């Protein structure tokens, strides 16, 4: 058997923290190996070591049988290793072609040889089925295309071993499918692919070999044929996933949120939400499905009070709140879990404690006379969130940005639910969150529903929509295309509504 990459006894220690503990992995040439594990399990550290960004404390790396020692990624690139980072490293202002050749430009005398560059890059694109517009600015492209540019960039540098760090986190289902097709073309060509992910369905779709990492150790090395999603999840979490919280049967006709014909302006569109009406009942989860970019973000922000509606009305428990400020609404009991926790929901540089009262710091419990913040109460709330929501952290005083994505999201959800809200607007509550945290968050949302809280769940993840919703509203082009019962509709049918090919009524 020919191995492209052999990692043996890799160990990486940061102070008291062991990120990688005696990890050994063999990767067959021409295969796709998925490294799966929860956030913080040590997969990224391992890949950074392989790519020369970090130096192992102990252990050896062999590339095509030859022992190597990388002191920087430059050395790794020399050995034909390339990495597609989760956050793309493109210069937005430069064209696609320039981005691909940057740092390795073919020259003609003192100037760039654009003609040769173009020929080489478009040949690469054709060979691997990645058509990209070479003359457009990289910043103007869709995320999926930008990713292809990244891949071309490392292929242009001669990569034979490609590392992908969570490549599907930012992609739509279609783009994911295309990416996987590209990956198969690459391996058919003899290239070796290492892929970090925690989406188990994707693992089962694309991988040949699977390595499960937990707490810095390899806990299982499996062939795809020998395993299934359930077993992988078991290995990843280290125990069976928590029992699924069951929804209690109960029907209430009490309308908590009533939205009547609202129109909301978006960034480039005067009617990103277009005369939309909906109602959310007490103790109900209304799922809003749709391809992202059809007005869901604007709807959520308008309901939370962050952007004004241009027409229509919003009422909460029969009280009109259309003109109320964000602050008034949150004090009235509208919690908002924003889709982008890193920019909207949290201040990453701040401690968990300071984030624990974000928005609610104006309540008399936290800010007393003369506007002094009650730090004792603040810390109590933080501790409560950490315990009830099982946030993994050394203390409430650490910056929230140092937590993993799942734990960050637990802080947001904890903060938004410990206040006993009437309505929760949850936008993409599990995006970029590991599976342990996903089932935790799902259970939490159902438990809240069972307690009588109304939930408006906005999600582009259909599994999540089907798992949680009492009713599903499909959003297309700023309007509700249909409101359906999840038990009586297939995914395919829902897909038709989402694509705008079908409309109710």
């Amino acid at each position, binding site marked *: 058997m020919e191995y492209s990459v052999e990692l043996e006894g890799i160990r990486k220690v940061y102070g008291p923290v*062991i*990120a990688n503990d005696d990890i050994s992995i063999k990767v067959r040439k021409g295969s796709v190996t998925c490294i799966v594990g929860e956030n913080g399990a040590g997969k990224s550290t391992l890949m950074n070591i392989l790519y020369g960004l970090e130096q192992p404390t102990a252990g050896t790396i062999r590339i095509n049988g030859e022992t190597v020692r990388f002191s920087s990624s430059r050395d790794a690139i020399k050995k034909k290793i390339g990495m597609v980072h989760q956050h793309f490293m493109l210069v937005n202002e430069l064209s696609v072609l320039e981005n691909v050749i940057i740092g390795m430009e073919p020259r003609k005398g003192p100037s760039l040889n654009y003609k040769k560059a173009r020929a080489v890059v478009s040949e690469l694109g054709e060979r691997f089925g990645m058509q990209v517009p070479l003359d457009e600015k990289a910043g103007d492209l869709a995320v999926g295309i930008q990713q292809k540019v990244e891949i071309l960039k490392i292929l242009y540098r001669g990569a034979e071993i490609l590392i992908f760090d969570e490549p599907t986190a930012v992609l739509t289902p279609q783009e994911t499918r295309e990416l996987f097709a590209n990956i198969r073309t690459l391996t058919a060509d003899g290239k070796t692919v290492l892929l970090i992910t925690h989406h188990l369905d994707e693992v089962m779709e694309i991988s040949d070999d699977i390595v499960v990492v937990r707490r810095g150790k390899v806990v299982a090395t499996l062939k795809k044929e020998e395993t299934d999603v359930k077993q992988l999840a078991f290995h990843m979490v280290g125990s069976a996933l928590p029992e699924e919280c069951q929804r209690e049967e109960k029907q209430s006709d009490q309308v908590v949120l009533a939205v009547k014909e609202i129109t909301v302006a978006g960034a480039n569109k005067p009617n990103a939400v277009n005369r939309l009406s909906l109602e959310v009942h007490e103790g109900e989860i209304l799922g809003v499905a749709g391809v992202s970019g059809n007005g869901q973000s604007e709807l959520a922000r308008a309901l939370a009070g962050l952007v004004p509606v241009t027409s229509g009305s919003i009422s909460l428990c029969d009280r009109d709140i259309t003109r109320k*400020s964000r602050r008034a609404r*949150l004090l009235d009991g509208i919690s908002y879990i924003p889709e982008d926790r890193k920019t909207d929901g949290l*201040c990453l540089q701040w401690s968990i404690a300071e984030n624990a009262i974000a928005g609610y*710091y104006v309540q008399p419990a936290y800010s007393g006379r003369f506007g002094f913040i009650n730090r004792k109460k603040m810390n109590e709330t933080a501790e409560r969130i950490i315990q009830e929501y*099982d946030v*993994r952290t050394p203390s409430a005083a650490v910056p929230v940005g*140092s937590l993993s994505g799942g734990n960050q999201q637990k802080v947001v959800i904890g903060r938004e639910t410990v206040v006993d809200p009437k309505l929760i607007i949850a936008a993409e509550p599990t995006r970029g969150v590991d599976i342990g945290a996903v089932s935790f968050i799902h259970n939490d949302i159902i438990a809240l529903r069972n307690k009588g809280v109304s939930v408006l769940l906005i999600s582009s993840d259909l599994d999540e929509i089907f798992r949680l919703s009492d009713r599903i509203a499909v959003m297309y082009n700023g309007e509700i295309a249909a409101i359906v019962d999840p038990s009586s509709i297939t995914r395919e049918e829902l897909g038709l509504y989402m694509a705008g090919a079908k409309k109710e009524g």
Partner: protein
Amino acid sequence: MSGKLKKALAAPAKTLFAIFVALVIGALLVLPTGTTPLEAYKELWNGAFGSKINILNTLARSTPLLFTGLAAALAFRGGVFNIGIEGQLYIGAFSAALIGIYGQNLPPVILIPLCILGAMLGGLLWAVIPGILNTKYQINLVVICTMMNNIAELFTDYLCGYPFKGDIPTNATLKLGENAWLMRFDERSELNIGFILAVVCAVLLYILMFKTRFGYETRALGLNRRFTSYIGVNVNRKILAVLFLSGMIAGLAGAEQVMGVNHRFISAFSSDYGFTGITVALLGGLNPLGVVIGALFFGALENGAIQMEVMTNVSRDLISSLQAVIIMLIAAEELIRTRRGIKKVKGAGKAPSGRERKEASAS
């Protein structure tokens, strides 16, 4: 040392470290002059702290920088780049001067607060225009503020050169009535009660920034504006509030110079206090207590440099070099912090969960 105390001292410790490194580099610059660094620093030290008068003068020189440093620290913490402190200082100073001249028959208990209030309002007024242009029309704050600085300096030059020209040949107003003078501690030094006012301001500002709702919102504004609006703050209104308060503190700097030092408004009297204040604020880690250290250090340098220049053959321009080195160190520190930040994130996944900790503490 308890964790709390450690945290409270972290910012000043960083400030002291930056000062130390700057002095080491300064020593290298002194070497080619033939004077030994030790000698130069000895004279610098003696000039700054050698006698009671020297100490008082050092404090006197620190005072305007303390005010402008605080104005900058507040604004920059809030991410509001108020480069217009210099202009706000001039308008504040002129307002104080006018009140001090025309209200000289009022008793000090009324006149002094009135002058101070006038100076704060003057500084605020000069912040209103940039504030509105910035929040309402998204015009770059740095650009408007820079222009407002020039307008303020030239406008006050005109005012004290023509309509309000006083009794001396240079462009300056009349003397303020003695009732508006700030009390001095010693007739041989310009140090006045304004220094105490500045220190009180620093303490109040520290409390405001780190203990109150206003400070919570201001710090959020400086770090993440989207988050700030998410937590229910009207971002534009908050920017204005921070800018106005910063302008008011800048006005105080002008008041102290007019009421405590010059006793009249003299055209272009500020030796770049507004800009040096920004350096002081950065040196102090945008922490009001750090600003006190930063201002004292700069005051000591400027005061000590006079004696150093006389007693050795080291030019007082060495001080400018030290200031430049400090700016570079601050920039470098920012760089190191960013890199450390990245490392920290990687180690965090292994921490115990909330439940595990609870169980551990229960057993």
